[in-house]
């Protein structure tokens, strides 16, 4: 009887829902499992490899370029996010104030986020040009420097420059997300706090911050995940150079997997990202579930 009841309650709609879900799962999972399989082989482009277990992963542990890549990726992802969050918060507070032309201004500040990364990266490529940089030109004419700034050729400056370009690109996302959070804070709360004698700082500290805390956290987690998996900006600016000082997982994967054609090893490099990104994704999911 129970089986009959279950059968009756199983409609065609359920059937298609399940099919669809299965389709989506296969669609999403196939490249992932293919990547895992490749990482366990010595495959090269155009040449099927043999199963070699975890050798690619073990080899990478002794590869100094991989160490440099991992270090760069952490710097790139973790250093940029606090700056993006702080600058985004400042931007959101400014945009939240009533001013003339607020709509066009809000649209304009989204430009770095909307413009295709490949295009904006080319802009930064010109700004950081070792010979024709407008910044170097300006500082030289002001008498502040005697030779051009080696933005992308000096180890410290190179990673700082790519981080700066990433911050520029990411601030609008934080700005608009936090702005949405700010606008959902009831005005009455601010008014009540003001009546109670709270200063502007205290109202910001005890009313605004708690109200937007969740939004900032979600934006930060998403930003870390995206920045970790970045590729375009670094590839256009430096291709991981000079001397691998700006390689991140994405660009090193590309270099090994496609340029050096070691697609098995390339898959292993990118899979090293997986547990790290999984931690951030789980944190995000836990937070969202708690909020619900």
């Amino acid at each position, binding site marked *: 009887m129970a089986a009959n009841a279950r059968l009756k309650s199983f409609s065609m709609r359920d059937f298609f829902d399940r099919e669809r879900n299965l389709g989506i799962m296969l669609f999403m999972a196939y490249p992932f499992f293919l990547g895992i399989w490749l990482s366990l082989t010595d495959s090269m482009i*155009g040449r099927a490899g043999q199963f070699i277990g975890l050798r690619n992963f073990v080899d990478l542990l002794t590869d*100094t370029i991989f160490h440099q890549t991992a270090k760069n990726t952490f710097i790139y992802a973790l250093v940029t996010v606090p700056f993006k969050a702080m600058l985004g918060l400042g931007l959101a507070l400014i945009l939240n104030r009533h001013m003339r032309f607020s709509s066009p201004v809000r649209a304009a500040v989204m430009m770095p986020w909307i413009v295709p990364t490949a295009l904006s990266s080319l802009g930064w490529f010109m700004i950081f040009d*070792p*010979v024709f940089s407008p910044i170097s030109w300006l500082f030289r004419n002001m008498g502040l420097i005697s030779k051009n700034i*080696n933005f992308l*050729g000096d180890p410290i400056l190179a990673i700082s420059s790519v981080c700066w370009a990433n911050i520029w690109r990411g601030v609008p996302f934080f700005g608009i997300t936090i702005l949405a959070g700010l606008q959902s804070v009831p005005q009455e709360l601010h008014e009540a706090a003001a009546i109670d004698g709270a200063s502007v700082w205290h109202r910001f500290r005890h009313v605004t911050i708690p109200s937007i805390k969740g939004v900032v956290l979600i934006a930060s987690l998403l930003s870390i995940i995206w920045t970790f998996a970045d590729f375009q900006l670094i590839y256009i600016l*430096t291709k991981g*150079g000079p*001397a691998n000082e700006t390689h991140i997982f994405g660009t090193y994967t590309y270099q090994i997997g496609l340029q050096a*054609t070691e697609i098995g090893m390339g898959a292993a490099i990118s899979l090293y990202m997986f547990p790290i990104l999984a931690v951030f994704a789980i944190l995000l999911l836990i937070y969202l579930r708690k909020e619900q």
Partner: protein
Amino acid sequence: MKSHPKKGKERVKLSRRDFLMAGAAGLGVAAMGGLLPDMLLAAKAPAFKKGTKLSILQGSYFIAPSQDLYKRQAQEWGEANGVEMSCDFLNWPDLQPKIAASVQAGGYDIVELWGGWNYLYKDNLVELGDIAEAFGKRNGGWERYVELSYKVGNRCLGVPHGYSNGSMAYRISWFKEAGCPNAEDGNKIDLTWDEYFAIGKKCKANGHPFGQALGHSTGDPPGYCYPYMWAHGAMEVEKDGKTIAFNKPQFVEGMRKFIEGWKDAYDETGTSWDDSNNNRAYLSGQISSTFNGSSIYFTAKKNQPEIAADTHHILIPKGPAGRFYWLDTRTFAILKNSKNVPAAKEYLKWWFEDKQFGDWWRSQEGYMLQPVKKYYTDPVWFKDPKMAPFREQPKYGQNMGFAGPPNEKAAMAWSKYIVVDTFAKAVQGGDAKQAIEWGAEQLKRIYGR
């Protein structure tokens, strides 16, 4: 009605039947002599299935008219043979990944392979020995650098069409100012690396440093670093293709000189330069000399004649172990996954005929080195004496991975910029030995597997 042959000058009358019989007999003789296939081929272009398409992928040309000429040639053959042709020209760094994707998933029939790529894709390329050997034989044999690198073992997986390489471009007036003898004629200058750096030191002091790309770029940085390494007695591997021969005392000493030279003679921002930075820096008068293809000179001739008049080329300097150029063979190859292999082969056979190849090669005016000996004496080399140093390069050519073969390991070391990054690390950190040890360790990871 039969014919009646008569003696003397009388006309011989032939009936229609006689004519047909005589024709048939002639054809029979020709067929027995093996002429029939040739006659038929000459009379009729190869027929390809209706709707046949050929897609060709190669690197973009610095000499734009040559790219246009190539497209026209492909079009001409396509129209004559009823084949739809398409040619794509990619930025150099994007070429290999695109070929890799095409090997995996299809998309192109003919691809341009750079040094070592024939080894990387050796299981995915069509054997083209017949076309290549006919081309080589017809033109006096291969130049030495082609001989060293165009085959994968005994297999010929592409037809060599040359190599575009750089030499030292320099500003005549600034070299004169720095006291370089015979500065007005680069063909009379023969420098060692030490002498070259000494001139650079004076040029930099006069406000005109040398410029060199050491970033992650596939052309100029390895084109400069490999010859410098060889000239100082080091190489990636010994002849066995396994034993690392990178960390040599002479090379460490040479690297110390390079670090010093970099500080004294070069624009130090070169650590981030790519293949295009030095062109722009030279043409804007920021640097006095750089390792580059003749593209700088050609661009100057077109747009800045005053810079072209003040520019000459010299052979790359020599070191204690001699003079070397990093020359690998570029080939046109057919992917095995192409659905149009017969058409692609016919096209390549046609394109490598003297007329097509000669027109194309000459249109580059020396930018593309000759793959075959015949072109060493081609009039194109004598049109402009400033191009003469390029003509001599094939004599000094050495493949990547030398003294081993230019195989997939050598290509991998190139793709990972190991040699170039060793130089970049040396000038960044100032420690020649440490940088070379790092490079040797990385090479061991590649060649030791």
